[in-house]
């Protein structure tokens, strides 16, 4: 048997080169890490216009209002809404403002033990309804536009079904509504384990515990390879800044109120009540047929948390005749932060809303940028006191980051279905 030849000299030479490179990288990395880094998030200026308990409403004012109907953005209770305004040049909020849309965004805050009894009904029919009424009053409009993200999207679906008279257009993004799928580990685990018990045990479901669960979805990449990648690039300042910014966002995880967590797991993941129009909030049935306003539904083809199967049934179950599914070739987060999606995702929403403005354009032209209309709004929710008004810091110049967030993949509009035509990947 012949002995295979191993080029030991080549291997040793390569090893020596690698060691030299690592040494040089470590030197540069220390310079980068010790220098001031630009890792701020959510730098677009805003004003707090509503506060109730832990919940705040951010108002982003465009330089010039071009659309009549303001847009209310409802983020999930998991992680923070800062994702939509990650950094200049990579901000969904900024794109909306540049196109003249007034943006309101819910900041759910950080629930404490005091919030453990707060249910989905309290979020949807309590906080959200007060906020929608406040915005309607501020703008003197019967309806507003509503956009939801992930779990926040599910809340928006519930809200639109229960208060359809207050919503002009509905945009759902990576929103799970059909939980009867085994695509995606999250669905399997939530259905087959009693994870919801942890909420009661800890008072609320701890954000850190949820983050651990998300890391366990792909430990090889998220716990190990991601940081190997960081060490390989830590001499690249732009890479480091983007990486740190994403780390800050990922691990900024508020707890989820125990009652809400429990209800979401049992009614949605375990019983799949929402898509069947069987879910009830405070005794009121959430009938998806009541969603008669135009609906735009985005989801990610490579989303491992909310797979397409969990999103795409919605447009077929609602009562609206004006619906559109858009499946982007990206993941759960990439849809908001990848460079390519920045060019397609938010501009598509702007255009779609514009097409459904009705008589909005002339009205918008006459409207002042900041709604001064005194309102019942102040009664509906607590007015923002001067000391609570928070003018965000001045926008900082965009860092020349080339690197996209790890989760994001190049985005493209992969599928566009109008109600009548079935999505390509549907069952």
């Amino acid at each position: 048997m012949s002995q295979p030849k191993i080029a030991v000299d080549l291997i040793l030479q390569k090893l020596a080169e690698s060691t030299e490179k690592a040494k040089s990288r470590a030197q540069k990395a220390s310079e980068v890490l010790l220098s001031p880094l630009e890792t701020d998030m959510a730098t677009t200026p805003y004003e707090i216009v509503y506060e109730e308990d832990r919940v705040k409403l951010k108002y982003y004012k465009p330089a010039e209002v071009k659309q009549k109907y303001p847009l209310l953005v409802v983020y999930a209770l998991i992680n923070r809404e800062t994702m939509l305004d990650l950094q200049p040049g990579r901000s969904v909020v900024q794109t909306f403002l540049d196109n003249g849309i007034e943006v309101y965004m819910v900041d759910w805050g950080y629930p404490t033990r005091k919030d453990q009894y707060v249910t989905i009904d309290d979020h949807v029919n309590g906080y959200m309804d007060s906020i929608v009424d406040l915005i309607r009053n501020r703008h003197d409009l019967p309806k507003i536009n509503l956009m939801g993200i992930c779990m926040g999207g599910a809340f928006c679906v519930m809200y639109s079904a229960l208060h359809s008279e207050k919503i002009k257009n509905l945009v759902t993004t990576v929103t799970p509504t059909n939980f009867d799928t085994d695509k995606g580990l999250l669905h399997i685990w939530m259905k087959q384990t009693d994870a919801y018990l942890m909420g009661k045990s800890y008072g609320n479901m701890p954000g850190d515990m949820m983050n651990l669960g998300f890391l366990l979805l792909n430990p090889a990449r998220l716990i190990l390879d991601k940081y190997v990648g960081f060490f390989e690039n830590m001499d690249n300042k732009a890479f480091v800044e983007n990486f740190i910014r994403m780390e800050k966002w990922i691990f900024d995880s508020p707890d989820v109120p125990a009652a809400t967590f429990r209800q979401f797991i049992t009614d949605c993941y375990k019983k799949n009540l929402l898509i069947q129009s069987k879910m009830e909030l405070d005794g009121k049935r959430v009938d998806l047929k009541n969603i008669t306003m135009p609906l735009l539904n985005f989801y990610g083809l490579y989303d491992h948390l909310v797979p397409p199967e969990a999103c795409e049934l919605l447009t077929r179950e609602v009562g609206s005749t004006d619906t559109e599914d858009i499946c982007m070739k990206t993941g759960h987060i990439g849809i908001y932060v990848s460079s390519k999606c920045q060019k397609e995702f938010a501009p598509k929403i702007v255009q779609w809303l514009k097409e459904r403005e009705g008589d909005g354009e002339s009205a918008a032209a006459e409207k002042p940028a900041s709604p001064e209309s005194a309102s019942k709004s102040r009664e509906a929710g607590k007015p923002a006191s001067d000391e609570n008004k928070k003018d965000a810091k001045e926008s900082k110049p965009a860092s020349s980051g080339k690197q996209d967030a790890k989760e994001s993949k190049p985005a493209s509009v992969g599928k566009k279905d109008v109600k009548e035509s079935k999505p390509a990947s549907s069952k």
Partner: protein
Amino acid sequence: MASLFSAWTKSSMDFWGNIAKMQPDTSGTSEKARKNPAYKAQKTWESGNKILMSLLSTLSEPKNMNTVLKGMDSLPEFMMQMAQQSWDGYLEMQKRWADQATKMGRHTEAYNFEGIDQNVFKTWNEIYEKEFQKFLNVPQLGLNRFHQERITQFTDKFNLFQAALSEFLYMFYIPVEKSSAVMQEKVEELIEKGDIHDNFKDYYNMWIKILEGHYMTLLKSPEYTQVMNKTVEALVQYRKAKDEVMYDVLEKLPIPTNKDMDELYKDFYLLKKKVRELSKKLEERI
């Protein structure tokens, strides 16, 4: 044993009898002296001594002595039995662990998690439940029984949680072990072909891909979901038992416990909800 006990009762009787004789005679003491506290103390001592002497003389009767001695014998017997059971459990555990340890990982195949040898954890749980847990479930008695019960429950739940966590961590480690084995085979194949990569990153990429594949297979397996659920349940039980002990301790201090605050928060939540509901109704009327 009986003669020793008999001798001890006799010497006790003699000793206390002599002490009693040394006391001053009080039979003819005047009325005034009887009111003296020292007189009262002496009388109390005399009465106590009489009770002791009658008890010792009763004990020294052969029939009674046997009964007492039997009772005394049963105590070490009880202790010995308890110790014997613990020791047997420990030996059994050691034996079965040794058996299982040699089998661990013997039958596992790459990308296959159906045949994972979890017997070592099953064995531990069986032994724990059969041999040790029962000691923690011995009924507690007396004034402190509830407090003691909470502490034993806490100990029990802590042990169960540790066992569940160990099983979970073991399972989580298996892909690393399997990936190393697969990687070794791949490298051997490459060497056979003479296709040696001089870039170490290539090997790392190869390994991380194999590892990811193993994890994906593991995480989707029902075995993993089952073990994860067991760990979650054990954690919840352990936290509950720990909280109960904490409430017991904190209850004595002038600070509110989570239990107190949770009750208050609930009242507060319900009140707030009611106020919001009434405000809305009022607004609608206006």
